[in-house]
């Protein structure tokens, strides 16, 4: 329930529906009847945060615990923030309208580095001291989960604990422990030392980091009995893993406004630039029956008429045709569409295409990632030009006329010829359209080639690589544009400044906490929004702190350097990543997990594809 005071501010802001709650399926409890108030904070605006599946899962799951009330909190847009600061309204949770400063848990989900300043800004808006060392009581505990916690060092000063890996079980264990310690009136220190014993929990204050003279890390030392390595948590049996039967249905339009089914976790591919591909190993599928039921329940309880089958690579689902057939038994009649957000070049068949088309058709996008075969081998993107052309021909036959191709520039070993290869590949797709004998009459083709800048990430074989400097990236972007020779190919690229900052924070260490604090002070926020991002401001923050961002973004690390995230264990062994990095330099590919196990280390979780029988490949 929003207060009158909040209502009054809403007259002065854009999209007030972001700030009122009250949506269908939002959960309201009696605060007097719960022990734990939990603020689930997404450090971006409502429309972005509400589209996030992880938040929907944990929101519903935590609220199944009768003694917990989990509420949603999003970052207010600038206009609302201005109103809140002017009227002294602290950051509040949408369900109750209560200020979150009095909550037990302030939990953030860290999805991208560019949201880090929003985390600080939200704590500040809530009136909560930013640094963990300035918060003395047991509550509020400021915690976080999400992919960025695999290297949360740039945020280490601000958080009390991090959840490493999948949160479904671990979150509940931590809440349960907290509830006990609160009743027993124990101190925050006692709680954190005990929490560090829960598998997957990382308490940064229980680790001391020392540095060498050259600025690299000397050692990361645990204390108070905290584990030397924190191994991520994994839900091995996806069929038994909690999944909500309803979503909060937003009043206002959001980015992904539909039912989402999670068909699998992990990825069988080992694209060497892709953090998610290694972080979420092993590959685990849900059964057709479970997915079907979860889809049906969701549609029944929300009124959505579109289901998105979500995962890192849905078309790798081993029973994709069976699943689509099963869904079609009721979706057609209930006028519900099915969409696949990610399609792969190599297993896009006419059959698959016809099934998605029979319900709904969206634009076609493929990600060859690199313009030449050599570079695709380097990054282990096992897609050939032949496969791509075959796929687009299938698509053209099916009536599609616009295709979007995603690439990266700045990949390790990349030359200007590889960059030009992006434009050439786009051209070949255009040619394939005109070679198609039954192409749609009177229609033209449009191929967009979109180039983002490569950001080296922790837990990938490229975690030691330097990122191209901004100047080099700009040169490559210009080269791409000048390599395009027809208007039917449309090149576009991402802002290199943004990728640079991402690279700094992705592989940053604890010394960046001060930079973050400084950036927050000089007003950096909503960095993921083009109009808000200012590299100049960030460089000022780095200068003030005496820190050279190039040390983090553009420096090649040696294999024996201690990395800021070496105490985090995602299952995949460092020795495997080194091996993969060497294979990359030798232009050698590695088979996917379904073809052959490469013993990456993720088999330690004893489940998923690592223990499955592989069909005998001929």
């Amino acid at each position: 329930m929003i207060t009158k005071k909040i209502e009054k501010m809403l007259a002065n802001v854009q999209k007030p529906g972001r700030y009122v709650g009250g949506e269908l399926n939002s959960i309201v409890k009696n605060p007097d009847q719960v022990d734990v108030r939990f603020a689930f904070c997404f450090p971006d605006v409502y429309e972005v945060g509400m589209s996030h599946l992880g938040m929907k899962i944990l929101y519903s799951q935590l609220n199944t615990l009768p003694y917990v009330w989990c509420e949603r909190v999003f970052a207010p847009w600038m206009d609302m923030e201005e109103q809140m600061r002017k009227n002294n309204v602290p950051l509040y949770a949408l369900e109750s309208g209560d200020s979150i400063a009095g909550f037990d848990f302030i939990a953030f989900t860290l999805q991208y580095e560019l949201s880090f300043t929003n985390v600080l800004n939200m704590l500040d808006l809530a009136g909560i001291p930013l640094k963990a060392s300035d918060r003395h009581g047991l509550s509020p505990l400021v915690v976080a989960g999400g992919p960025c916690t695999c290297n949360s060092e740039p945020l280490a000063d601000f958080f009390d604990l991090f959840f490493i890996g999948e949160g479904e079980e671990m979150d509940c264990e931590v809440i349960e422990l907290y509830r006990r310690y609160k009743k027993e009136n124990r101190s925050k220190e006692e709680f954190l030392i005990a929490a560090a014993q829960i598998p997957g929990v990382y308490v940064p204050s229980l680790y001391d980091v020392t540095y060498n003279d050259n600025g690299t890390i000397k050692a990361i030392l645990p204390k108070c009995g905290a584990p030397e390595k924190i191994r991520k948590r994994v839900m091995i049996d996806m069929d038994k893993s909690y999944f909500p039967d309803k979503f909060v249905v937003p009043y206002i339009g959001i980015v992904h406004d539909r039912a989402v089914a999670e068909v699998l976790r992990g990825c069988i591919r080992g694209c060497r630039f892709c953090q998610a591909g290694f972080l979420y190993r092993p590959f685990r599928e849900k059964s057709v029956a479970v997915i079907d039921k979860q889809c049906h329940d969701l549609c029944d309880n929300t009124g959505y008429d579109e289901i998105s089958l979500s995962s890192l690579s849905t078309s790798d689902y081993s029973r994709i045709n069976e699943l689509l057939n099963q869904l079609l038994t009721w979706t057609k009649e209930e006028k519900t569409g099915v969409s696949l957000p990610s399609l792969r070049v190599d297993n896009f068949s006419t059959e698959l295409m016809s099934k998605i088309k029979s319900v709904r058709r969206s634009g076609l996008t493929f990600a060859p990632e690199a313009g030449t075969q050599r570079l695709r081998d380097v990054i282990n993107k096992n897609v050939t030009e032949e496969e791509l052309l075959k796929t687009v021909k299938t698509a053209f036959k099916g009536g599609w006329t616009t295709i979007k191709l995603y690439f990266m520039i700045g990949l390790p070993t990349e030359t200007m010829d590889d960059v030009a290869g992006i434009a050439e590949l786009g051209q070949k797709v255009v040619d394939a359209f005109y070679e198609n004998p039954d192409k749609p009459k009177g229609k033209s083709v449009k191929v967009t080639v979109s180039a983002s800048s490569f950001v080296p990430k922790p837990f990938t074989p490229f975690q030691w690589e330097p990122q191209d400097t901004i100047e080099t990236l700009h040169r490559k972007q210009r080269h791409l544009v000048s390599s395009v020779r027809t208007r039917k190919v449309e090149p576009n690229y991402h802002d290199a400044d943004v990728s640079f900052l991402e690279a700094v924070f992705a592989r940053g260490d604890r010394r960046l906490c001060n930079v973050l604090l400084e950036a927050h002070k000089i007003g950096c926020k909503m960095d993921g929004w083009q109009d808000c991002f200012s590299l100049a401001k960030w460089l000022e923050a780095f200068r003030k702190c005496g820190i050279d961002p190039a040390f983090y973004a553009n420096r090649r690390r040696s294999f024996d350097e201690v990395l800021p995230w070496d105490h985090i264990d995602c299952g995949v062994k460092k020795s495997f990543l080194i091996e993969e990095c060497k294979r990359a330099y030798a232009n050698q590919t590695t088979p996917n997990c379904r073809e052959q196990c490469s013993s990456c280390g993720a088999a330690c979780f004893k489940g998923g594809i690592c223990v499955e029988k592989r069909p005998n490949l001929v």
Partner: protein
Amino acid sequence: MKNVRIWFKKIGTARFISHLDLNRCMLRAIHKAKIPLWYTQGFNPHAFITFALPLSLGIAGERESMDIRLEDTELTREELISRLNAALPDDIPVFDATEPVMKPGEIAYASFIMELETENICAEEAVSRIKGMLEQENIIVPKHTKSGIVDLDIKPFLRKTEIAPKTGLIEIQTVLPAGSNMNVNPLLICDAIKTYLKLDFYADIKRTNLYNADFQIFV
């Protein structure tokens, strides 16, 4: 098939969503409630949904309506209402379903209750000053139209406007032209008070009813 007029309120949190959002919300609720909507035949089938008169963002509605066309169905009125309520957020309650009598195009007036909460000035004082303003020869406010901003004299439309202090607030009851021909948004009255009297206040506005040209209640 048959036409049904669904009567609902748009209150609380639902005041803060646009007409477009409301439309989507209703479509979803109808889908969720498995109400057998009648679809046009042909290549691109679509359903009939018409709202009597869209409501501006920020204003509550006490007696809003939406017309839908249903397949022949056994669904009773009570069942229709309860199924929709189960599928809608609490702040969009459905309270009736009737056979449409008037056409939405007949709507000519709408009644509003506005509660103004002033800062730095007591309600009685504010009421007398607003009354003074209402006596003026003309009351000119800028109005957004399709062809840009024009100056509009709202004085002629304020004949059915009453104002009185009410428990520390200022209550304005008014009936304004509404509909496709001439539409006067109650926010224009707020704008007038703000510009003429330099008063700062928060206005809580709700639309209470709709009428045809003869001041008969829209049914």
